[in-house]
């Protein structure tokens, strides 16, 4: 047998501030520096176009978190632009309240936008993609119709003047400077979110929502936060839009504009800040260069979108991401380093137990689990085997809280686990892997592993938004820990910055274990971790799992590779048709007549 290649020393290539496949802050800064030059080399017309691009970007930067990162297809976001524009204009004009100072009106618009963002976004928590997209279109229509109907306040069809900002922002260049500054700030804010655990969590909701729940990411809370942010930026963009236009009417807020915002993000590439920025600039500039094609401009946008979807779904960001095209080292092997586990899993003082009792769950008329029970003790490996359809994975899923059992209890250290609450399990000390690896393909290996540390973070959203030291500390700590976890399970740290979808299947399985260990679990649930592994890799897996249990973690191992089971488990429970067929030590199970006939064979 050939010697496996030694894994590279752990401290070597700690990747610096990269994230989900883009080139970092430098190009964005370069674009803004170039933008500052525009008033000096161009005339008022170019400043106008650049101001428009900046305003659109203010909206798109926030929407990017919703569409690009969280994957929520909010197509009708022009509704928030409309809302912001009218709020600011009405408040300055004094149609509904005493006239306000323009900056106060803009702030008020931001507040209104934040609330409206949540309202428009809420259906995303209940509805699937296409339906949510339709509701956002519905909102866009509703807002426009109300603007049209509420004549006394909004001027109805005639509209009303936009807010005139105080000097020096009342000139073309002045307004441009303001918008550019705000656009730059929004870029910085959304970059901070994107690079933080919130960015990771958003992408996790989008691409691996089941795994996201298992590591403690609460989708609703997270989405509400970014709806607030994106609603705020969109409404601010609306107020500035009204200033730029100097006069707003309902017909300025077209569906085509909504489509433009949306397409900018997708052409730019999801999970990126730079990509949508470039996309927004390109789509704002395009009609100005192709004046004869004015009538066809929306057609061209749509054709561009179709081309991107079919040929380059990763968008501009993927095209710019040359790093991800560099070939990976061939013949990689997985070399767990159990000694690293000491850092990951500090010793546990007293052993506890995870007890399942009389669990029952039916799907429709089918009894998937019928009175199952078992006990997992800290430091022990408990195997769960049985034929296909015997209820093994369902049992795991009940423990994980994806399903609420019809009957029976699960207790951890004497405390019952609330049924059906999947997002709370991580904090209670339960981590798991999945039958098919659930990872975020577009994110890097390290980012995926760092997902496991979500609950360990002490800083909140505002700290991430402003890149405060507390947030950066959490990031560093998670990063350090992630590298250790990678090394512990045997993945080379040179893989840390590689996109996950380039990894081999077996590497993904070990990656999931690394992710699970990040939260210092008391109990680790493994769902067929050996599936698809070579014999050599199964050996390594056995060693790793044993080492993990020796650190005091209780392991519940669902497997079909009975050799592995009998090799490392202390106890085995056999399920058949949702019921416990037999339970005991390996010797007892191996000799058990019914188990042999139903499952093992002679």
């Amino acid at each position, binding site marked *: 047998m050939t010697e496996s290649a030694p894994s590279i020393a752990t401290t070597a290539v700690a990747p610096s501030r990269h994230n989900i496949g883009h080139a970092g802050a430098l190009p964005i800064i370069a674009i803004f520096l170039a933008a500052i030059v525009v008033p000096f080399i161009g005339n008022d017309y170019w400043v106008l176009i650049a101001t428009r691009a900046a305003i659109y970007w203010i909206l798109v930067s926030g929407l990017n978190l919703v569409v690009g990162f969280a994957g929520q297809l909010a*197509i009708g976001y022009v509704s928030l632009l409309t809302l912001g524009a009218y709020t600011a204009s009405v408040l300055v004009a004094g149609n509904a309240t005493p006239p306000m100072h323009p900056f106060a009106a803009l702030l008020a618009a931001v507040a209104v936008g934040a609330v409206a963002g949540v309202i428009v976004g809420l259906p995303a928590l*209940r509805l699937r993609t296409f339906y949510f997209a*339709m509701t956002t279109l519905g909102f866009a229509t509703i807002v426009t*119709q109300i603007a049209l*109907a509420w004549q006394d306040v909004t001027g109805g069809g005639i509209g009303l003047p936009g807010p005139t900002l105080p000097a020096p922002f009342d000139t073309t260049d002045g307004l441009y400077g303001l918008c550019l500054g705000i656009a730059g700030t929004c870029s910085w804010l959304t970059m901070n979110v994107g690079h933080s655990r919130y960015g990771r969590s958003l992408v996790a909701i989008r691409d691996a929502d089941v795994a996201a729940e298992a590591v403690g990411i609460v989708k609703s809370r997270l989405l509400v936060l970014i709806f607030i942010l994106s609603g705020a930026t969109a409404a601010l963009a609306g107020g500035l839009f009204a200033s730029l236009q100097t006069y707003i009417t309902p017909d300025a807020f077209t569906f085509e504009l909504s489509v433009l915002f949306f397409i900018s993000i997708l052409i730019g590439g999801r999970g990126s800040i730079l990509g949508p920025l470039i996309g927004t600039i390109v789509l704002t500039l395009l009609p100005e260069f192709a004046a004869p094609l004015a009538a066809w401009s929306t057609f061209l946008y749509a054709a561009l979108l179709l081309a991107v979807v079919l040929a380059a779904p990763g968008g501009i960001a993927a095209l710019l991401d040359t790093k991800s095209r560099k070939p990976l080292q061939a013949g990689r092997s997985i070399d767990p380093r159990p000694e690293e586990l000491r850092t990951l899993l500090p010793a546990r003082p007293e052993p506890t137990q995870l007890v399942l009792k009389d669990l029952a769950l039916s799907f429709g008329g089918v009894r998937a689990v019928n009175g199952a029970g078992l006990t997992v003790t800290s430091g022990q490996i408990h195997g769960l085997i049985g034929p296909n359809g015997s209820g093994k994975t369902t049992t795991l899923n009940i423990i994980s809280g994806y399903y609420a059992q019809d009957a029976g209890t699960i207790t951890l250290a004497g405390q019952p686990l609330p049924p059906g609450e999947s997002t709370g399990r991580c904090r209670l000390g339960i981590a798991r892997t999945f039958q098919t690896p659930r990872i975020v393909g577009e994110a890097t290996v390290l980012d995926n592993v760092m997902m496991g540390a979500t609950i360990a973070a002490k800083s909140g959203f505002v700290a991430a938004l402003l890149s405060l030291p507390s947030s950066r500390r959490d990031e560093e700590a998670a990063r350090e820990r992630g590298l250790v976890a990678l090394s512990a399970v045997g993945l080379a740290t040179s893989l840390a910055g590689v996109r996950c979808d380039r990894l081999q299947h077996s590497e993904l399985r070990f990656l999931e274990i690394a992710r699970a260990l990040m939260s210092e679990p008391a109990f680790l649930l493994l769902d067929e971790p050996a599936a698809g592994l070579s014999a050599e890799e199964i050996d390594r897996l056995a060693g790793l799992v044993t080492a993990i249990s020796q650190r005091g973690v209780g392991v519940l191992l669902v497997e079909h590779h009975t050799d592995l089971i009998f090799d490392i488990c202390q106890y085995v429970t056999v399920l058949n048709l949702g019921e416990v067929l037999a339970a005991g030590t390996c010797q007892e199970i191996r000799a058990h007549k019914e188990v042999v006939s139903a499952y093992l064979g002679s």
Partner: protein
Amino acid sequence: MLASILMSGLAVGAIYALIGVTYNTMFMTSRVMSFTAGQLGMVGGVLGSLFALRLGLPVPLALLATLLCVALIGVVTEFVAVRPVLKSLDQHLYVLSTLALATMIQHTVAVTWSTEPRPFPAVFGFAIAGIDEKFWLPVVTCLVVIIGLEMLYRRTLAGHAFRAIAEDNFAARALGLPERNLRIASYALAGGIGALAGFSGGLLLLAFVANGPLLNFYGFVPVALGGLGNNRGAIVGGFALGLFQQAMNFLVGGIFSSVAVFGLFILVLLLAPQGLFGAPVARRV
């Protein structure tokens, strides 16, 4: 007044219901909700006007030509916007590709045909029981399509194959059903149904490019209400929507009626995300 609301409500409701069926037919074999459904209806009306009035073909020939053309657009949808993205695990891609294609279709029609509504010819030219053709034709067409589909799904092999794919994709393929061809066929069928919606509704809605997004949305509401893939639910939902909309037009007037419809739609979806008659979504874990 009530008679007028009933007449026009059932007529537009029938058109919305047919578009809902169009959505469902495309969904059946591909699990894709296509943004092009409403555009198919719009193009049906536009082509009907083009063939019958602009080019002067006799109406039955114009209908046949329209059906063929729109069925072709349906097939193109499958080729361009659906099949390439089915391979990807990314759910969002088909929303984008069909949205892109729908936008392209709409703007091509807008630039080449016109942005103003154009007239549509009378198909039969007679009234039934005093009800003008523009009110009874959509309803009759809807009923004919429903009966036709029922017979297709229950009595023919192709229909059984469609239903098999819709229920369990993998099992159907394992049985050797030609999934790809069936999908193309169902998209062509969807095109035909959309064309019938637009053609039968031509007198009422006129050949108008703005019908595209209108039908997209109002044709989706029956699907949302009736449950995805549920044609009977779509029919009921369609008629209910038509009646509600006309009643609102009468009660609160043009502007607020659309606010009422959209508002109710969002509310119903939030309360019953699978639709009023829908089946619960499949297990995701």
